[in-house]
Structure formats: structure tokens, C-alpha cells
């Protein structure tokens, strides 16, 4: 017993540091005032491109003299919101598609899977970019575009999981004891796919963050003065010849969060036995 306990704990080793990092990031994004105390949109003409630690500005100022630290913190909320929303929305779309396909069986399953395969050939950013034509430049537009662009992997995994669970002994037991179909799905099936669904959400979050920053960087996503990591990188990129700081800070946040989410999803997936 103790042996089993130790093995389980060690399988999550290495997930602790990314978890704490992300926790800090979320706190930072949710409680901006208590960390910065500076308005992210106020421009200080004298502090244009000030280096870090200039008169109370921890990370320096950007090309309009706005405090970089507070812009970064307010951008964190936007980027994390996009990431988590894309994670949830694309998992919902992919989940409905995959579970339906798995449950309905023939003749629907092959048709739905063929459609999925065809759609899967197109890269997420290509689909999202085309969708941005219609959706505009808002936060919701970015979330919807990226979710429609990237739900296909989720659908595949959840279909496989549905096929596996459909044949499980406890489902047979429930069916043969005369449980109604609705109750079968909601009380017996859904609670058992929840772990996989959670891991899928976690897998999709970094995709959402990366997608947002790529779109915004290309000028196709969120637009200034709305701050997000992608918008900040875009601005920092333009300022690169004069100052590297405007690029370094948001870049560091993006890389740290992406890697943390990926490691966390990987560890959780391995622990819950979701193959990847």
C-alpha cells in the first residue's frame, strides 16, 4: 500500500513547480492593483523607453511611457482568459462531436470521423485567420476562431474514450438493470469521461495562448490599446531596434506559461492514464 502511494506521488513529481508558477500567474492576473499600483494606460512623456527599475517602474516603460509591469499584468488576464476559454470551448465542441460519434455508431460514426479527418488537414491558425475575416478583432472573436480551428484532436481522443467506456462492464451492468438512457449518460458515462475531458482542456490551454499571441503578433488578433501578451510582443517587436526589454518580458511570460501548462497537462495525463 505504501509502495503504491509512493509510486503515485512520484508520478506527479516535476508538476509542482509549473503548478506553483501558474498559480502565481493567475493570482497576478486576478489581483493586478495589489501588485502594481500603476495605471497601465497612463503615459509618462519623460519615461519613454525607460530601462527597468527607473523611479518605481519595475520593468521600465514602453515607447509611449506606459509602465511595462502593469501592462504585462493586465495583459496576463487577457491572455489567460483567452487560453482557458479556448481550452474549454474547443473541448466542448470536440467533446460533443467525439462522444456523439462514439455513441451513435453506424452509420453516423464513419461519416463524422471522415468529416473530422478532412477538417483535420487544415492547420489551426489557417482556419482561425480565415474566421477572423468575419468575426472582427474582439476577445470573443479570437476565442471562437481558435476554438473552431482546434477542436479536432479533442474529438478524436474523446471518441476513442467513448468507444472504450461504451463496452465497459459497469455500463453493461447499468444497462441491464434497466437504467434510462438519459440517466445512463449523465450518471454513469459522463462522470467517467470527466478526467479525460479535464486533461484535454489542460492540453488545449497552451494552444489557445500560443494561438492568441500568434494572431495578435501578425496583427490579425487583438488590437491595441487592449493589452495581451501577443499585443505586447507585437509592440515589443516593433521597438526591438531601440530596446529589447519591451519584447523580453512578454516573451518570458509566454514561454513560462506555455511550458508550465504543457508539463502539467503531460503529468496529469500520464497519471490519469490518458495516452499522448
Amino acid at each position, binding site marked *: 500500500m505504501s509502495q503504491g502511494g509512493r509510486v503515485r506521488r512520484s508520478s506527479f513529481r516535476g508538476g509542482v513547480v509549473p503548478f506553483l508558477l501558474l498559480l502565481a500567474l493567475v493570482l497576478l492576473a486576478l489581483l493586478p492593483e495589489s501588485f502594481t499600483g500603476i495605471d497601465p494606460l497612463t503615459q509618462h512623456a519623460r519615461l519613454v523607453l525607460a530601462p527597468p527599475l527607473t523611479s518605481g517602474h519595475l520593468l521600465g516603460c514602453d515607447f509611449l511611457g506606459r509602465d511595462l509591469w502593469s501592462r504585462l499584468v493586465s495583459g496576463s488576464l487577457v491572455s489567460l482568459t483567452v487560453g482557458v476559454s479556448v481550452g474549454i470551448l474547443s473541448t466542448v465542441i470536440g467533446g460533443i462531436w467525439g462522444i456523439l460519434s462514439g455513441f451513435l455508431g453506424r452509420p453516423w460514426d464513419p461519416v463524422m470521423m*471522415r468529416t473530422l*479527418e*478532412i477538417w483535420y*488537414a*487544415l*492547420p*489551426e*491558425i*489557417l482556419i482561425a*485567420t*480565415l*474566421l*477572423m*475575416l*468575419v468575426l*472582427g478583432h474582439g476577445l470573443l472573436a479570437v476565442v471562437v476562431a481558435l476554438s473552431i480551428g482546434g477542436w479536432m484532436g479533442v474529438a478524436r481522443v474523446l471518441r476513442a474514450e467513448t468507444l472504450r467506456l461504451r463496452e465497459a462492464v459497469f455500463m453493461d451492468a447499468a444497462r441491464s438493470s434497466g437504467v434510462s438512457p438519459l440517466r445512463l449518460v449523465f450518471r454513469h458515462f459522463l462522470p467517467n469521461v470527466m478526467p479525460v475531458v479535464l486533461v484535454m482542456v489542460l492540453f488545449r490551454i*497552451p494552444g489557445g495562448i*500560443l494561438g492568441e*499571441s*500568434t494572431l495578435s*503578433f*501578425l*496583427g*490579425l488578433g487583438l488590437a491595441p490599446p487592449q493589452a495581451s501578451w501577443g499585443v505586447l*510582443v507585437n509592440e*515589443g*517587436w516593433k521597438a*526591438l*531596434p531601440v530596446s*529589447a526589454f519591451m*519584447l523580453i518580458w512578454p*516573451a518570458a511570460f*509566454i*514561454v513560462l506559461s*506555455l*511550458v508550465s501548462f*504543457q*508539463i502539467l497537462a503531460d503529468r496529469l495525463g500520464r497519471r490519469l492514464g490518458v495516452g499522448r
Partner: protein
Amino acid sequence: MRRILSRLFSSVLLLWAVFTLTFLLTRFAPGNPFSEGRHLPPEVMAHLMSVYHLDRPLPVQYLLTLRQTLEGDLGVSYKATGIPVSEILSQTLPVSLSLGFAALCLSLFLGLLGGILIGAGPPLLSRILRQATTVLVGLPSFLLAAVLIDLLALHGGVFPVALWEGWRSAVLPVLALAVAPAGYLARVFAASMEETIESPFYRTALAKGVGSVRRILFHLVLPSLNAVLSLLGPLAAAFLTGSFVVETVFAIPGMGRVFVLSVMNRDYPLIMGTTLVYTVFLTVAILVGDLLSEAVDPRVRSV
């Protein structure tokens, strides 16, 4: 043969679906392609709309565009007035293809080398590289491009900052494009080698005492290569997305940049042309990858 035919059929289906979707998305986009940045007199606007058939009912426009496209005519760019889309594509596609091909070669080399070192290298190096690939896969290409430009172009002065003139200008974009896919490749390849190590025939080779170079090359690396072949489709997609960013960053006159600009400019024929070429490119990559891996390993076919 029947399998190939059915694959071709679904490719045609995909092309038609992409055509229809792109058509609908462009026509339902708010605003119109000629209203941006200038105020045209109403009669000029009406003339422009009628020249490009944009004043017709939607189904008529759809059929007109479909017939035109089937005849191989992609129309004329709205923004670069009067220049046929096919001409723009024939100028920019070779640039993107050579950039992508160079990046593919580099990432295959780096990825296979990395995979071998992770799978069969010394334990410490293997662990370090495995961690490194986690970071590399998550590293957005625009960040890598920025670091490369800052270090090697702006401050180092070794390579040019941008543009597409001669091999020196290709070094940084190819590197920026190749590194993330290389990390991905290395991970997949290493995982595939781990599976091979578990297999009976590898253990037999080990037990027979086959020399270590021969064992690693012929009993471990070659049988594991198949996993890489089936990745050709996803890799093509990765290079395509990467090219949007890298060509924009380095101001390379390739198709990725044309695509991004055409979306910004609402240049409908150009959006349609680039999207269709991309779709053809992706389906060919996936098809070739699948056929190659079936040829190498007939077991795949029965699955």
C-alpha cells in the same frame, strides 16, 4: 489502388469544402474590399462592384467563381490592381517552397539526431535534451526569430536583418522555422525508439551481441523511422503556420506573407487563391506521408 482513389476523392471533397467555406467567409465579412482607407464616389464604387461581380446575388457569385476556378482562373487581385492572382502565386510560391524545403531538411536532420541522442545517447545528455525539447516545442517561432535577429543581426551583424537576397539572408528564417518542428520530431522519434527497444527482435539483437553501432543503426533507428514518415502531414502544417510568422518577421516575399496581407486587405481572390494552394499542398503532404509509411511498413495498411 482503390484506397488511393478513395483518398483522392476525399481530397477533392476537402478542396470543394474549403472553396465554399472561404467563399462564404469572404462574402459575409463586414465592410467591402474597396471601402478601406479612401472614400470613393458612389458611382465609382458601383462600377467596381459590378466589374468584380460583387453586386450579383450570392448564389450567382458562387457559381461564377466556382466555374472560373475550375477553369484554372483564380481571378485578379483587388489590391494590386489588375495583377492576376496566379501571377502573384507563381512569384511567391517558389520562395516559400524553398524556405520550407530548407527548413524541412534542417529539422529532419536536427530532429533525427536529437531523437537518437535522447533514445540511445548517454543518460545525462538524453535527459537534458528531453527537457530542451519540451521548451523548444512550446517556443513560438516569432520569439525565436526575435532572439535570432537581436543577437545575430542587430548586434552581431553576422546575418542580414530581413529581406530575401542570397543565402546569407536565408539562414535566420530557416533556423526560426526549423527549430520547433525539430523538437517535435525528436520527441516522436525518441518515443518510437523506446517502443522498438521493448520489442523482441531488438532484445534478440542485444542477446546475440550485435555490435553497438550496427545495433543502434539497423535494429533501433531504421525500424523506428516509420513514426517520422507519418508525421509529414502535421509537419507540413507546422511549416505553413510558421511561414506566416517568419515571412512577416523577415519581410520575405513569400506566400505566407501574401496570405496574411490578403486577409488584412480583404483581397477576396487572393485569399481564395492562397487558401486553395495551401489545401492542395497539405493534402499532398498527408497523402505522400501515408503512402510512404505504408510502403515501408505494410502492417500500417491493415489498421
